[in-house]
């Protein structure tokens, strides 16, 4: 009798488990495989998305400073008739494009924004795109990190927008793990830091100590306008105008926040997994 009762209970429990598992399998069939084709295929971005800005200085009326005056972070400057746009300060807001009377500034659908130097982020004179995009690491670093890059994320006072769009890289849509890139729980397990936020005074010491805890050789990636230049908070006494005030930076990914595709493109470019042109 006891054996029959326990057999019955065992059966019920197992039927319930099978039922739950069956539902999960059916759900998976409904949800389908959803990882994006990027980078093998071009990315699909919203049609109104504000990507790399294009400047057409020939259209600027003499002495016009409308865009420079309206930009909230002074990312635009008019110097000797030439308009310059610092992507590291740009919030990718619609204001300059809307304000320009001649259409000299336009946001394009170009998602490739990451750069290896602060200077390469300044758009002005016409330069080939390939020169401005991030360079792959030199050979030795690529041997170390190219197929396995472990990053520690440090949120240093931002608004959580960049953190959210970095987090989303770990979902099935972007599946960061398939490139060997992973976020780890401790700086001691990491090859580098991915920093967001302008570096508030209250995070300065934590960021320094986290950087010191990463074994060499190490990388630093600054994601978002705040981490590159302080973003909307540039100049506030409570912060340090970006990661570079505290640690050396190897890769700059501009945006507010940068689209996950832009971040992914930057990371892959750093590892030499994409062509430059």
């Amino acid at each position: 009798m006891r054996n029959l009762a326990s057999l019955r209970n065992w059966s019920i429990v197992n039927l319930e488990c099978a039922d739950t598992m069956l539902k999960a399998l059916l759900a998976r069939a409904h949800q389908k495989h959803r990882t994006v084709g990027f980078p093998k295929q071009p990315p699909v971005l919203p049609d109104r998305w504000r990507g790399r800005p294009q400047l057409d200085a020939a259209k600027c009326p003499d002495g016009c400073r409308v865009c420079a005056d309206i930009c909230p972070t002074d990312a635009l400057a008019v110097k000797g008739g030439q308009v310059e746009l610092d992507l590291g300060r740009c919030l990718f807001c619609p204001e300059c494009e809307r304000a320009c009377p001649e259409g000299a500034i336009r946001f394009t659908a170009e998602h490739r924004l990451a750069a290896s130097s602060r200077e390469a982020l300044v758009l002005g004179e016409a330069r080939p795109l390939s020169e401005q995009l991030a360079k792959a690491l030199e050979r030795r670093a690529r041997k170390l990190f190219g197929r396995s890059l472990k990053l520690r994320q440090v949120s240093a006072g931002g608004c959580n927008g960049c953190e959210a769009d970095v987090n989303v890289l770990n979902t099935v849509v972007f599946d960061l793990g398939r490139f060997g890139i992973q976020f780890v729980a401790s700086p001691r397990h990491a090859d580098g830091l991915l920093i967001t936020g302008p570096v508030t005074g209250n995070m300065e010491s934590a960021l320094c100590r986290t950087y010191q805890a990463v074994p060499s050789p190490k990388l630093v990636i600054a994601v978002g306008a705040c981490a590159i230049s302080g973003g909307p908070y540039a100049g506030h006494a409570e912060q340090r105008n970006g990661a570079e005030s505290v640690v050396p930076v190897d890769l700059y990914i501009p945006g507010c926040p940068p689209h996950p595709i832009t971040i992914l493109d930057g990371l892959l470019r750093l590892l030499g997994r994409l062509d430059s042109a």
Partner: protein
Amino acid sequence: MNTGATGFIRNGDAVVRAEIPRLGLDDFREQVLQTCENGGRLMALFGQPGGADRVRLCVVLANDAEGQLTLCSTDVGDHYPALTPACPQAHWFEREIAEQWGICPEGHPWLKPIRFHHSYLPRRDAWQRSPETPIQPGVANFFMMEGREVHEVAVGPVHAGIIEPGHFRFQCHGEKVHHLEISLGYQHRGVERALVGGPGKRTIPYMETLAGDTTIGHVLAHCEAVEALAGCRVPARAQILRAMALELERLANHTGDLGALAGDVGYLPTASFCGRIRGDFLNLTALICGSRFGRGLVRPGGVLFDLEEARQTQLAERLAQARRDVTNAVNLLWDAPSVRSRFENAGPILRGTARELGLVGVAARASGLERDVRAQFPSGIYRFAQIPMSLYHTGTVFARAHVRWMEIQRSLAFVFDQLKALPEGPVRAEAGPLAPNRAVVTLTEGWRGEICHVVLTDEAGKFAHYKVVDPSFHNWMGLALALRDQQISDFPLGNKSFNLSYCGHDL
């Protein structure tokens, strides 16, 4: 519009500053304590410089049932009897006042810094710290438990995941948490101070990034304040688009939260599906304005982007697909016994505690408190289209998850309805200069809960003072209490069930 002797105002109505009742300290105290004892609650309590080392304390009290707010003020010197012992809702506000203005609330049981910055009145500091000495965040007298085998666990500011910084100090005995103390301030960017003298070029970017995942919630509260001060009427079409954006923001975040909760109990199907579906909702916001977080959409006077017919159709189709997907993914949670057993008894906040603390938003509604700005202090299209309040009674992790699920379903229904009801017309009106010497309180129901902006203008129509209260400001204490007597391994689950904003608190 004036307040009259009683100080009654409504959400989004600008009043003349001089007519805000200025009470003596005893009457002010009486007003606050009486209101809170009789079913009202404290929405905001803050100080603003009053000249000659005096500080003017302003309070916004709410009567949810009547949809009425009370605004009044009093002047204090460098100390006053604390409200917190009689009214725990004032706890965090009084700490903020102490930190910002160097005022000591005498008898406050928990007087510690909340953002770790120097006083705005350099000669005065509530903890007698010198203005020369740098302040170290997270260095405070944490309450400690004494005893054999008692241990202390410290987490943060740099956490294991991709998440904002905060410090959590647990007093544990074995696995059991006897006390959790939360210390924030790592994201303090000095935004409130920078707003004074505005509106300026950076005002909108500040509003959109106060709490970066609550762009629409905060920028909407801001724009409604500016519109009230400028006497600007927002066209109906814009009001609907704004509400749709607010609900899409709610949908994205609630979906993400349910996925994260599933992940925290190791239930990967829902975790991975919801991680993706959250992006689908974000992409719907991007369909409208180009930005997944809704940046660049809401501006004073209306919105910057419109929906032409083809876009409306696309939005409706994609929203319908997202509804099918999220329903399919979330229903797995309720069926899985392993998930239910983790959710059902974890992190409880009883209704009485929630009321005492003054919790707002999802956390309050999950403990049975009827608090929702869209229903009780509606503005914009919410005055005409009601969304039923989503309530549950147990106050556990399950309750907070279940409330999110109900809100997802109701927000979806709302957006579908509004898509069909979009009237013709412009999407933006001109917002002129702001009226001088006015005050306005604006409220929105952000996806975490009630957002409150209190804006005061000076003689030139510029911001004399700008107070932002993010829902997290009310709710962090709720998380601290929810972990009491819980297992420390349930902390990520409890934390995720609240999912509060660090930067929204720190400003």
